[in-house]
């Protein structure tokens, strides 16, 4: 169980000469829960953006299960198996909860349905729609959102919106899930709940998870390995305990 799912090689990007991310090398193994931490502006979200194709890296490249994904578009990368959530929640606010998840299911091969089939409402359309709904409900059940499925996404409380975003990402059936501050804005109880869910989906869906988080309790409770970023460069890397106790890391967080 030690095959490498995500591997980045010297990943870096610069904006107008300023290196936002530089020389990041990460290796994440299958079913690993991996943390990416660092102070504000350290370039964590930029790494996510690089891994999902929002930005194209200026230097370096990354591989998913040995396949090079650098240069692919966001859609292609998602199809290859990387899904993400966003730091500032990006739900489809004017759509109901279940439809948010249904959008995530859109590209699953078993739900393929030609637009013209839908336009004419051929039998396949109904079959697919029904199957998709069933599947979406299953996913919502994991996150305890099934009862809210007909609510508008924007009417959900904050914690549930975060969970819905994860559910939606999960619906795209990823191999690697990137969670950008999943516990932000949650109370301790919700955080505890979320940690359980994350472990559960890792096991149930055979997932590898890379997450950004500021809550160190959350990180140390969940992740076995982390990378600490500061000013775009890797400050420390390795076992969570070791990395967090690295003097450089403490300095970066607390200051001199």
């Amino acid at each position, binding site marked *: 169980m030690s095959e490498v799912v995500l591997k980045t*090689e*010297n990943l870096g*990007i*610069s*904006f*107008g*000469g300023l290196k936002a991310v530089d020389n990041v090398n990460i290796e994440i193994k299958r079913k690993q829960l991996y943390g990416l931490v660092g102070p504000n502006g350290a370039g964590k979200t930029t790494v996510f953006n690089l891994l*999902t194709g*929002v*930005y*194209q*890296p*200026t*230097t*370096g*490249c990354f591989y998913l299960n040995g396949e090079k994904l*650098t*240069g692919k*578009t*966001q*859609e292609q990368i*998602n*199809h290859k198996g990387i*899904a*993400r959530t*966003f730091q500032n929640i*990006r*739900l*489809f*606010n*004017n*759509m*109901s909860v279940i*439809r948010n998840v*249904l*959008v*995530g*299911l*859109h*590209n699953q091969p078993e*739900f393929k*349905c030609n*637009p013209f089939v*839908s*336009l*004419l*409402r051929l039998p396949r*359309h109904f079959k*697919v*729609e029904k199957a*998709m709904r069933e599947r979406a409900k299953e996913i919502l059940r994991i996150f305890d959102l099934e009862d*809210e499925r*007909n*609510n*508008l996404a924007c*009417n959900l409380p904050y914690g549930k919106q975060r969970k819905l975003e994860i559910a*939606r*990402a999960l*619906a*795209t059936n990823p191999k690697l899930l990137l969670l950008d501050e999943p516990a932000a804005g949650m109370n301790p109880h919700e955080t505890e709940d979320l940690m359980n869910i994350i472990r559960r989906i890792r096991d149930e869906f055979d997932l590898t998870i890379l997450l950004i988080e500021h809550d160190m309790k959350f990180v140390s409770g969940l992740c076995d390995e982390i990378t600490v970023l500061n000013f775009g460069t890797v400050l420390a890397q390795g076992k969570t305990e070791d990395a967090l106790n690295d003097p450089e890391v403490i300095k970066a967080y607390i200051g001199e």
Partner: protein
Amino acid sequence: MAKLKRIKISDYFCYLIVGAVMIGSFIVAQTGNLPRSYSNLLVQVAYSIILAVSLNLVVGFLGELSLGHAGFMCVGAYMGSYLAMQLSAVVDNKLIVLIVSMLAGGLLAAFFGLLVGLPALRLKGDYLAIVTLAFGEIVRTIFKNMSVFGKAMGLSTQSIKYDTRQDTSLYLVSFATVLVVLFLVQNLVRSKHGRAITAIRDNEIAAKAMGINVTFYKLFVFVIAAFFAGMAGVIYGHYTTPVLYSFFSYNYSIEILVMVVLGGMASINGSIIAAALITFINFQLQSHLSGDLAALKYLIYALILIVLVIFNNAPKLAPIKDKVSPKAMFEKIRAHKRKPGDIRGDKSDWRVIPTKIRMDEVLSVDLQQGNDYTPDKPNKGGN
């Protein structure tokens, strides 16, 4: 789980009203009491509905502002009518000629839709709006100068025009077309593809991250909308003669947009009602305000427009509106029967639905370009 499908009336409301008007007018026509002006009004209503519903696909569902919808209609009207005239010399059946030319006109317009869709991939908001406007103007300028389409004299469609004295079936055909268009649009909107399209509207970045093929769907919507507008153009060509480029100006595109906005973004029923209403108001104003009073026509139209829009949208008037609105009262009666949090549907109130018409440009006075947000070019040798 109860598998019995609940039939929601609101889902079929549009078919009901369109069908009712169609059958109702047909019955009236059979008794010989349908005045020609009304059968002609019905044709106008029909092509307005097609235009408004198809534009709503672009503006309401995809969230891109298009000011060039009349351009697609123009393509359909010129090319489709021209084809119909050629066809009518060979084929005897008027209905077949109309249907074939409608499909052909639609396809040609769809091709232009593809052309307009391409910049839509790169441009946003107002920039896209002006490009669509520009497209509409370019199209009609080109048609204006083609001698095969009669240059500034327009394309005379006398030979295919329905003689409304003997043959009032055009409105029936048009309404049948409306039903087909509605069927297709409703199906699209209520399918997974419709969800993908609305997802792009709600949050393009998230939609991309979910693996939605944004390029495909944007082009798809533009093509479909253009196809329908082209069909509306062919109906127009059969309805009146000559097909004249001046009709398809951006003013007409805006009129279609007014229908969409008044009817409500992403509300097909609303588009139908607003299209019928505006066509009807225009018809009444034109019929009743003649001679010296004609100048009042636009005055009244403008006042209706301003008052309606302000009444519907002004944040400060919202409490007053909720009080007087019959639907709000109806809701109140139903409210206690319903569990809170059981609000159905995702169309919501259109006022809160944003379109990507981003009005977020900044007034800038500096000449240098801010490229702080553009990533540097990838280093080719780096991998």
